[in-house]
């Protein structure tokens, strides 16, 4: 592996050459940044991954059933497993999706499940991303370059090849395709994940489309070719948020969407990947109920654990949170990307007081979690070995059965003491090796 690590700078140069960047808006100015790569991989043994794989499949199956349930029968609410205010009060719940069932009942075609490993070596799920999870392209292209940099490393270690993500994604699109071409739909050049959009279009062989390339006629979605011909579209891997996807259904001021695409979707004439309305499952309040969901829908004990979580909505949890706020991490349920996360231990007494009052006033808005003591990962920074907090985004792709990609995006924090690993907050990434034996 040292043969690989000594080439870290060259690999980063090659990543820059291939335009492996992400965009960020600061003071309304768009800038593209490189995503720093650390060549020391996260290594997951076969047995450990087998365990994660079982747990991830179970979790995504349950979440998929949940999404269908809450947009149709709402049995889980009727049976009082989840309080209705947690569903209907979630920012991601879309009333406009009521009754809409996607092709083959697949809501979450690509699920990004964020996990961390504690220093007790147990894995905990930190959050579920079922809206438009991003990040698979980074370890995929990094692996390609790592193999070039140090073939001996990969001859000596039995690492499962992760460069099949494009094939897995294409299979997921083909599975739900209603007849027509597959399209990757990007909002445009200045989206933060534009590199990934274009790269995945290349790797899946799907047509790369901007909103103006698509139109709906007779509840069917078409792609306009420059020659004047129209191609029917059967599946859209859309990287546009629900709110902006169809100005006739969601935000009327959206210039990014395709008018009437929701009509084509409701008519069953096109698959939207992932399904609109999924973000209700990303809600940090709903996250609390996923273990209960697994028991309810699948009749199984959850294989993967949530981080110990408290809902101030419940009086007992409220009391615990108020009594122990300085050892907890408080999260605003509507925020993502590392925003809205507060560590009680870092707050002044005045801020603690204010936060307690806010939690009491808006109990539904917050969750509290025990701080997990991460199993820190080694990184090499300026030639020196050190350690960083890191998470793992695992990707589960849904076809006839869920498939877990044998890799994942390992993100690490910028600073040694920081728990925030999001790229937008300045962190870096690693390849994730899954060993085949």
């Amino acid at each position, binding site marked *: 592996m040292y043969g690989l690590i000594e080439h870290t700078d060259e690999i980063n140069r090659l990543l*820059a*050459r*291939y*335009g492996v960047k992400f965009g960020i808006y600061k003071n309304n100015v768009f800038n593209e940044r490189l995503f720093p790569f650390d060549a020391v991989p996260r290594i997951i043994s076969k047995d450990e991954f087998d365990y994660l794989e079982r747990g991830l499949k179970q979790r995504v199956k349950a979440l998929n059933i949940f999404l269908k349930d809450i947009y149709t029968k709402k049995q889980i609410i009727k049976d009082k497993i989840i309080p209705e205010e947690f569903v209907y009060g979630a920012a991601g719940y879309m009333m406009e999706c009521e009754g809409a069932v996607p092709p083959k009942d697949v809501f979450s075609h690509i699920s990004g499940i964020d996990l961390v490993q504690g220093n007790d070596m147990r894995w905990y799920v930190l959050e579920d991303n079922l809206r438009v999870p991003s990040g698979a392209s980074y370890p995929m*292209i990094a692996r390609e370059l790592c193999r070039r940099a140090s073939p001996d490393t990969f001859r000596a270690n039995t690492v499962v090849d992760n460069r099949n993500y494009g094939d897995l994604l294409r299979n997921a699109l083909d599975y739900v395709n209603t007849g027509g*071409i597959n399209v*990757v739909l990007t909002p445009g*050049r200045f989206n933060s994940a*534009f590199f990934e959009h*274009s*790269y995945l*279009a*290349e790797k899946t062989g*799907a*047509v*790369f*489309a*901007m909103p*103006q*390339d698509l139109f709906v006629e007779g509840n069917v979605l078409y*792609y*306009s*070719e*420059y*020659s004047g011909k129209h*191609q029917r579209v059967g599946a859209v891997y859309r990287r546009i948020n629900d709110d902006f996807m169809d100005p006739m259904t969601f935000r009327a001021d959206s210039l990014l969407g395709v008018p009437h695409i929701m009509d084509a979707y409701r008519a069953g004439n096109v698959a939207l990947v992932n399904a609109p309305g999924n973000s209700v499952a990303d809600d940090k309040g709903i996250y609390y109920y996923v273990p209960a969901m697994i028991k309810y829908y699948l009749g199984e004990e959850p294989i993967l654990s949530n981080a110990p979580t408290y809902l101030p909505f419940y009086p007992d949890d409220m009391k615990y949170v108020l009594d122990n706020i300085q050892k907890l991490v408080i999260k605003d349920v509507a925020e993502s990307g590392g925003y809205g996360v507060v560590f009680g231990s870092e707050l002044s007494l005045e801020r603690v007081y204010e936060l307690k009052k806010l939690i009491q006033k808006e109990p539904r808005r917050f969750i509290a979690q025990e701080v997990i003591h991460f199993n820190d990962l080694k990184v090499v920074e300026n030639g020196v070995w050190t350690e960083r907090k890191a998470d793992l985004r695992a990707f589960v792709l849904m076809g006839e059965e869920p498939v877990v990609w044998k890799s994942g995006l390992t993100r690490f924090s910028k600073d040694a003491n920081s728990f925030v690993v999001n790229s937008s907050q300045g962190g870096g990434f690693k390849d994730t090796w899954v060993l085949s034996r």
Partner: protein
Amino acid sequence: MGVISIKSSDNLFWLGRYVERVFTTLKAFTECYDIMIDINDEEYINFCRRLGIANNYSCRQEFISSFLFDANDPASIYSSLIHAYDNAVEMRNVISSDTLSYLQLAVDIMEKSSSSNAPLLKVQEVTDWIFAFWGSADDNIEAEASRNILKFGRSIERLDLYTRLDYPIELMRKEFSIMLNRLYKVGIDFNAHSIERLTRMILEEDDYSPYKFSIQNELSQLFVTGVM
């Protein structure tokens, strides 16, 4: 034929034009730079006039640094390269990551060269990467239509610049013939009247110089993608 939209055809066309603009203006700039060493300090004034760009430069040194590297100078080679990159990055899935990477390398070199005290030594690599870009485009762009639109853009830009820079009629005719072949291959509607007029001015006249502006005008009307 690959499936591409009007917007994509526009991106490909302008990608071809901007890459060619970088290539040919860099070549012309190099000649101008040489003249400015010991023949005429103010050759850049001539250069701007021939290219048809505003001479907003106060001196030779300002011209050299701005025309090569200034992102805020719309006529600069760096600006053209960024425009090429912006079009290319939207077409990654058509031109391939490899082809795109050669433009990224050219951008990187331009950015590094701006602080060099011998910038022309460094920017030679820009020309190298552009050659690599075209080789990679030939190899990696699977759909013939996409390849042709890209190269059609290159031909249009080349003809436009050749007229501005007073290139010999033989070179004009050669490039015009290449462009005609490509145009018929592209398989889209084009302005047939413009082709007639261009044929007369370039192939039938002994000297095209009286028609320079007409040629530029007809070239600009030849390929209409419908995207503003």
